[in-house]
């Protein structure tokens, strides 16, 4: 498992190198990840102006307070704290394990789920409430059926 972890670290390093080469021709892995032609990628929320609930993905009605047409786009923070997690040892065929599936509360609101990387996947190394930052990089080399590359986001210890 430790070797696997080292290998993952190295892959992440490579991906970051690749990312710093530019965002050109990279599609976002999810619709709440914005990849501008120039400048840094970021996560986007849709915030209800009435009750301040933050949603991922575009919508017109707030499911918390039922207000209609009161949503505005907000740029979500790249800083957050770990709310909960699991270490995944069994996944679907072809998915590298183990990895840490993490739920992160972002500063200024919004909760997102993703992989916590650059931490050995062992409960002793993962603390509830630990500070993490959102980092962006290639979506683990995954391509769609047309061969397009994707950008995704990850968490790493701050």
């Amino acid at each position, binding site marked *: 498992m430790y070797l696997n972890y080292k290998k993952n670290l190295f892959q992440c390093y490579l991906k970051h190198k690749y990312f710093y080469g530019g965002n050109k021709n990279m*599609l976002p*892995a*999810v619709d709440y990840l914005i990849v501008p032609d120039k400048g840094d990628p970021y996560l986007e929320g849709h915030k209800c102006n009435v009750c301040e*609930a933050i*949603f*991922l993905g575009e919508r017109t009605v707030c*499911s*918390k307070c039922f207000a209609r047409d009161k949503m505005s786009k907000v740029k979500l923070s790249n800083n957050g704290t770990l*709310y*909960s*997690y*699991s*270490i*995944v*040892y*069994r*996944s*679907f065929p072809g*998915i*590298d*394990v183990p*990895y840490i*599936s*993490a*739920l992160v*509360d972002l500063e200024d609101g919004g*909760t*997102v*789920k*993703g*992989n916590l990387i650059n931490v050995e996947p062992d*409960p002793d190394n993962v603390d*509830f*409430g630990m500070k993490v930052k959102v980092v962006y990089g290639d*979506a*683990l080399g*995954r*391509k*769609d059926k047309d061969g397009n590359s*994707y950008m*995704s*986001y990850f968490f790493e210890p701050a």
Partner: protein
Amino acid sequence: MSDVYVLGVDMIKFGRFPGRTVPNIGAEAALMALDDAGLTIKDMQAMYCGNLGQANAMVGQRILQEIGQTGIPVVNCANACATGATAFREAWMSIKAEMYDVVLAVGVEQMGKGLLGGAGGGDGIPKEGLLGSGTMPCVFAEAGMEHSSKYGTTFEQFAKISVKNHHHSTLNPKAMYQIETPLDDVMNAEMISYPNTKLMCSVNVDGSAAAVLVSEKKAKELGMQRAIKVRASALASDPYTDRDLVMPDVNACTRLAAADAYEQAGLGAEDINLVELHDCFATAEMLHYENLGLCKDGEAGMMIDEGHVELGGKIPVNVSGGLLSKGHPLGATGIANIYEVCSHLRGEAGKRQVDGARIGMTHVIGLGTACAIHILEKS
């Protein structure tokens, strides 16, 4: 409104039946429940059928094609892991509404082996293992770890739940497995999604269960000796919670349904003698001790440590062996739970009988989210 009684109820022994069809498996439990009620399909005025895997394939009608086509109305229900309980509740409502006096509810499922949960798909690239995991063992592990974060709940405490339910199943001949799993075995089993090991995940099995529900008038006419009164039938969907989008809710939804059920019954948790709750994973059972009000928030770990939830304890939970060992055929589970509680209230639960049980509760929750709770009473 009429009170509603369960007059007949039964389940088949859960197992794997690759050579059989879904309607054929469902028909077996339907006939068993009819026999238990001392009635025939000719006496049924309507049928509610729960199944997930073939939700678009008229399973209820196909069951009647096996056991008797009387032309009665049939409604097919799908509501994730609350499917069977939803079918039961629809039957209950039809009698409450005084539409019918005698109604059949059936739950049935034929499962594949392996992981349940979001493999991704759709446009773009698969998200599993890229944006965390959508597998059920992981989703429920994350919900359990939220409890660990708040209250310091340990891996060992979660594992003890699995030890307990597997022990209970050794007393239940209808459970898929009847094997003891000591704590070391549970904790050292293959880790699936920390803290859930393989022995802390429910077993995918095939199965069916069915119930005959009747109005009070009909129960009096047919004899009340073995009739079980439905004191409450509650169904809730997930209310908005702050982490909804990334963390499917199992807590708020259960609390909402529990409050409704206790209010309908005019009872509190202290009045309940046994509970069959939705232990799809060991981590899930821990949460529901608190969600159902069996203890105060933060006391769930103590409940398992002190043995309060074991057979013979203060409030025995999942004496059937639970989904962890009896097995979890999704569409059948909600009615199988009702069968278990009815068996105790009738004093017919054999070696695992909860002594003097008068009132019991069943709980199921399907992600997405649907929670169904029933409170049943010996009449």
